[in-house]
């Protein structure tokens, strides 16, 4: 029941919000809806009644598809991420002006519903439905409220992911015909009878779809442009939550379905991701634009998670589960600061910024904390996850781990450089009259900083939440 509510509430709330004309009431309504979703998600995590977490009803009997939703450890942690990030984002942009605000926030909620659907589905066709449906609001949000090159850039993003998901659809149908009971249920998919050659093909069809979404080198080219051009409120959703759909797909579907193919291809994929990490980190150093820098840094982080998954070591996988949540929190925090700076000063270029710490000390402190979390400093939340992932990767291949560690150093280089150029030094013309961030922004950032520090000191609840699922997952794939 809780699983169903998690999807229905944002759908209904979003649809109502589309028709609200008044800007402030649209914002208030969407914030309330997102808080209700958060409450429901927390209820799902702390409830002791297992039957509340499960929902199952016949849907397309002709096709063998059912509406099966379930909250297990993996979907709990990702639903929590989705549910936490939405109110934080809404609070952070509460004072920003959006034309047609009702539609903007309505589409945000619909997108949230789509993502929650992806995380909760236990039926392959349903999963595909939500996978596509999450994309439609994203397409409209980015194309209507984005930057000046928004239409082309968003279209590139849409076509890229659409190609991937169609390939995945082919694979889903193919596997469906090889399931023992001709059903789309997750369990039947795990037990599908495929020959080795077929497994290889299906593995790659699935992988391309997920790799485009994550994105993994060389399928990443849509990502920096899209992050740059989409409205920052939505960039937070995209990079914080939506890219997790790709990683989620690997964990829920790809690896347990084709463990052999995953093993035989893991060296290719890990090599690709590590190349991608290095490449993205090097490009990030050369960026002059805050948004693009964070976009490339995100490619590196997601690449590490993907590599750790395919390395198939227990520590690494535990790390990925935690890091999926933490990376979402951290990157949303960074985007909030970028959004404040851009809205206030009209630029995101380092060359036009400087000395902001003198004018906006609170913002500077909060931003530095988020940045330190981004480079995975000990006692921040990201440290736990990255440490586990690196130890997993090291067990798999010391060379790969060694190469990937260079990226950590590079990450420190570009992140600290960003802090220095934007917040320290002397004020320049554009920052001369800057003022500190407003209350709502501080509130949103403080929530994130608390999460960063709490989970940095005490990651145990998060590990407990996912332990069972991690164990199940590891037995499935080994």
């Amino acid at each position, binding site marked *: 029941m809780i699983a169903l509510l998690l999807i229905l509430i944002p759908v209904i709330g979003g649809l109502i919000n589309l028709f609200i004309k008044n800007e402030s009431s649209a914002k208030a309504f969407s914030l309330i809806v997102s808080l209700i979703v958060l409450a429901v998600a927390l209820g799902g995590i702390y409830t002791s009644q297992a039957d509340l977490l499960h929902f199952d009803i016949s849907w*397309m*009997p*002709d*096709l063998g598809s059912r509406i099966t939703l379930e909250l297990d450890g993996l979907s709990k942690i990702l639903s929590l991420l989705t549910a936490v990030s939405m109110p934080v984002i809404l609070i952070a942009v509460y004072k920003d002006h959006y034309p047609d605000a009702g539609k903007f926030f309505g589409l945000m909620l619909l997108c949230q519903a789509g993502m929650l659907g992806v995380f909760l589905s236990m039926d392959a066709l349903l999963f*595909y*439905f939500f996978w*596509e*449906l999450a994309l*439609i609001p994203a397409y*409209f949000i980015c*194309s*209507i409220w984005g930057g000046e090159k*928004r*239409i082309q850039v968003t*279209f590139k993003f*849409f*076509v890229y992911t*659409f*190609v991937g998901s*169609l*390939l995945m*659809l*082919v694979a889903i*149908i*193919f596997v*469906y*015909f090889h399931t023992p009971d001709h059903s789309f249920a997750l369990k039947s998919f795990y037990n599908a009878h495929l020959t080795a050659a077929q497994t290889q*093909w299906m593995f790659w*069809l699935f992988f391309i779809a997920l790799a485009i979404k994550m994105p993994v080198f060389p399928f990443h080219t849509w990502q920096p442009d899209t992050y740059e051009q989409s409205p920052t409120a939505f960039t937070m959703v995209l990079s914080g939550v939506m890219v997790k759909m790709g990683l989620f797909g690997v964990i829920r579907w790809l690896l347990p379905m084709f463990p052999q193919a995953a093993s035989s291809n893991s060296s290719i994929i890990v090599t690709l991701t590590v190349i991608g990490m290095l490449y993205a980190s090097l490009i990030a150093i050369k960026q002059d634009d805050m948004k693009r820098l964070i976009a490339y840094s995100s490619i590196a982080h997601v690449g590490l998670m993907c590599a750790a998954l395919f390395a198939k070591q227990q520590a690494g996988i535990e790390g990925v589960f935690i890091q999926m949540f933490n990376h979402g929190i951290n990157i949303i925090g960074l985007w909030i600061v970028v959004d404040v700076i851009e809205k206030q000063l009209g630029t995101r270029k380092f060359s036009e910024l400087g000395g902001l710490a003198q004018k906006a000390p609170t913002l500077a402190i909060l931003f530095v904390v988020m940045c330190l979390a981004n480079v995975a400093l000990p006692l921040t939340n990201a440290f736990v996850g990255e440490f586990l992932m690196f130890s997993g990767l090291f067990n798999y291949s010391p060379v790969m781990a060694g190469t990937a560690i260079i990226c950590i150093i590079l990450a420190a280089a570009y992140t600290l450089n960003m802090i220095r150029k934007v917040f320290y030094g002397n004020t320049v013309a554009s920052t001369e009259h800057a003022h500190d961030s407003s209350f709502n922004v501080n509130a949103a950032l403080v929530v994130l900083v608390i999460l960063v520090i709490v989970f940095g000191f005490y990651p145990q609840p998060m590990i407990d939440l996912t332990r069972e699922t991690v164990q199940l997952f590891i037995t499935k794939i080994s």
Partner: protein
Amino acid sequence: MNAIIFSAGWGIIMMFCSFLVKNQSSYRHIAAVGLLVLLAANIFDTYGVDFFHIDSGKMLAYTRFGFVFNSIAIASTLIYVLLTGRDIERLGRYTAEFFTLVFFVLCGVCLLSAYNNLLMLFLGIEILTIPLYILTGSDKRNLKSNEAALKYFLMGSFSTGLMLMGIALMYGGTGTFLLESSRLQSNLYHGISFLEIVGLLFLLASMCFKVSAAPFHFWTPDVYDGAPSVVTSFMATIVKVAGFIAFLKLCTVRMSVTSTAIDWKLIFSIIIILTLLFGNITAIFQQSVKRMLAYSSISQAGFMLFALFSMNEYASKGLLMYSVAYCLATIGLFAVLVKMKDVTFEGYNGLAKTQPVLAATNAIFLFSLAGIPLTAGFLAKYYMLASIIKTGTYTWVVVAGVLFAAISVYYYFRVIQAMYFKNGEPQMESFGRSFKLGLVVLAAIIIIVGAFPQALFNWLYF
């Protein structure tokens, strides 16, 4: 039998109306009533109430599948008449004759869904196309319309010649015109006769022409573009799908039994890839939405050809789903298109600001054509892909097919981009509230069928 006789009969009634009823605007009401009667008669027939009991001597064979398709075709025509009736009146003085021809076309559709004899196939195709030659030229003073009609007529009669030749050869090869039970006859010739194969190839070519599959598609863009938009809307949807239903029957009966002698799957896979390639690639470069839809109809035909390739139960169900998804979406798009004064992509700029309902329903129609989930178009594509994957061979055709589907997003979404993301003041003919309501109902049907396909398929069983 009900539908065949009622459609022909009401066509004649419409003809008499043209001089008995003086009021121009009442024709479309009479036509709508006629379609309702026709629909009811067909539904009666579906449940075993046949008013006529004519023995066709096995020339016609009624199946539940055929009846359901008839209902879909008639209902789509009803929606078409209700949505674009006013625009048909603007075409000229001969509105009643226009509707007469529509009824005759429907008569051909009903024959095609029930034929069991190659002569009936020929008759159905002819009853279907001859009114279309006239309809294509119905904008008498427009040079493009005349050109399209002549082109269509010349090419169409040529392909009809091919069809007759093919039927004759098949008769020579098997000794019967009947579709089924022909195998008994042809066994006399010790296996599959060469004449039958050649005859089937001729039939294949002419049927490909009728459904505008490559490489026999060249007439399509010119004819669809030249014909008045209200006619294009009709001939690109209901007529085309009827051609596919006839084609599917031919394939499942005759081609499947000759598959030991000739590799039909290879031939169809080549036709599919060519059709998708031509349709999609040329659609990208169009500047007019009408011409884009003409090419898109070729690319959608490519997907419908999947059914002929695989010939299993997924194929027939998928073709039904496709006929709903494709007909309704295209009729809806054309209904809006005929109201636009400028049918280029620029003409749609800013439609979402001035006419939000029209833009939203149009977006749903385009989503359906592009195959986005929760629309009937997705399930249609799903069934088509599944039908080939189920055969277990030629999976590469499916992969190529989905890549072309991704290309089709490019030109469908150009309309969405124009409507939602660009600024402009679209110029439109006037329309009433009922028009908007009709579009909303149409969009709702597409979504309901897309979310609950059993609403359609239960009809096949109960």
